């Protein structure tokens, strides 16, 4: 129920209420984008037919580095 699946916005309709999200496995689906500020090319989390958040790619790239950093900080501490 609270499952949300990440996908890439590949199209936005004229009224900016819906878009097409590509889930990367050949599945594309019409998604309501009215709850987020989104542009073509953004990655979003989709839940029950609605994009609920835009994924922050920069944060995503940094996550692993941050983990490594936190683990080594503990060693030093």
């Amino acid at each position: 129920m609270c499952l949300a699946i990440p996908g890439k916005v590949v199209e936005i309709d004229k009224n900016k209420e819906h878009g097409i999200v590509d889930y990367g496995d050949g599945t594309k689906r019409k998604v309501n984008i009215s709850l987020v500020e989104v542009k073509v090319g953004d990655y979003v989390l989709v839940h029950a037919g609605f994009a609920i958040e835009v994924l922050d790619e920069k944060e995503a790239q940094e996550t692993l580095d941050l983990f490594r950093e936190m683990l080594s900080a503990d060693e030093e501490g």
Partner: protein
Amino acid sequence: MFSLKDKKLAEEIISKIKKLDVKLKFMHVCGTHQDTLVKHGLDTLLKECGIEIGQGPGCPVCVTTPKEIEEMLLLARKGKIVATFGDMINVPGETQSLQSMKTEGYDVRTVYGIEDAVNLAEKHKDKDIVFMAVGFETTAPTTASVLLKNPPSNFSILCCHRTIPSALKAILDMGEIKIDGLIEPGHVSTIIGTEPYEFISKDYHVPQVVAGFEPLDLLMAVWMLVQQIEHGKAYVQNEYARAVNKEGNVKAQKVIDEVFESGDKKWRGFPVIPQSSLELRSKFGVYDARRKYESDLKEISNKEFKEPEGCRCGELLRGLLLPQECPLFGTQCKPESPVGPCMVSIEGSCSIEYRYTKKR
């Protein structure tokens, strides 16, 4: 697409936790977290490190009460087209489920989201369509968003939305189990942000980490909780920064506030939890199935419905029991013949346990 996979890092976290020689009990409130934990054997691995993680009331289908199920069954019996998410259809009521009613010829539809239910209403203008709106803060904005768009007058919802922080407070207030740390649900948190959890750390001195859904996300969340405990701290940390920020999705919060107001509600396995539900504001009353079909629902309005006999979903949802400790698990209660909702929902801990331990 970004993927959080690093076996070496995972092994490093596990070995670090092992060295600490702890004995801790954590709770999470999300079926997707439970799925990751059991699917990848992290629950067993962490238990060997002295950390038990159990699922609390984090499955919307599971916490929906027997009474709400009966309301939906009765509306179907009264000739409405009832629409709901896939899992809900198989939750047993007192005598039958929506699925068995469908087999008998009643009009029960499974939908992917609320917009599909509105499409049904537009297609069948001569019929009444009732959508069973279950779900936490993740799902509530989808309902709100649709109601703000003036759906057709033959459309209404049976509102069953609930909010997570109040349930966590209820568990801590009940004091039935010791909770050393909470792993907070990533997708609920994309909407509400991290602030609504802060009172828990402040008032109950319980460390919390908002976590994502990859195995490494959960291991890292556990590590962060252990670190807080080791240092005598209790605050809210955000491990899932790629999707969650402190403020949450403000746009979604606004639509929720516009459509709903907070109410007191019973959860399965719990007494009434104060301020734990989202009820429709009176100006959306025309879409409130309970108000619209008051006369249809009258025959059960004062009736109480019990849990199925022998079912221990209530204790499970309060974190007192693990699926395999229930005498019905895998014997009388199986996915093809579930007794309680925790065996029905793909997010229910019994269903998850059955799915993966059978394969092991």
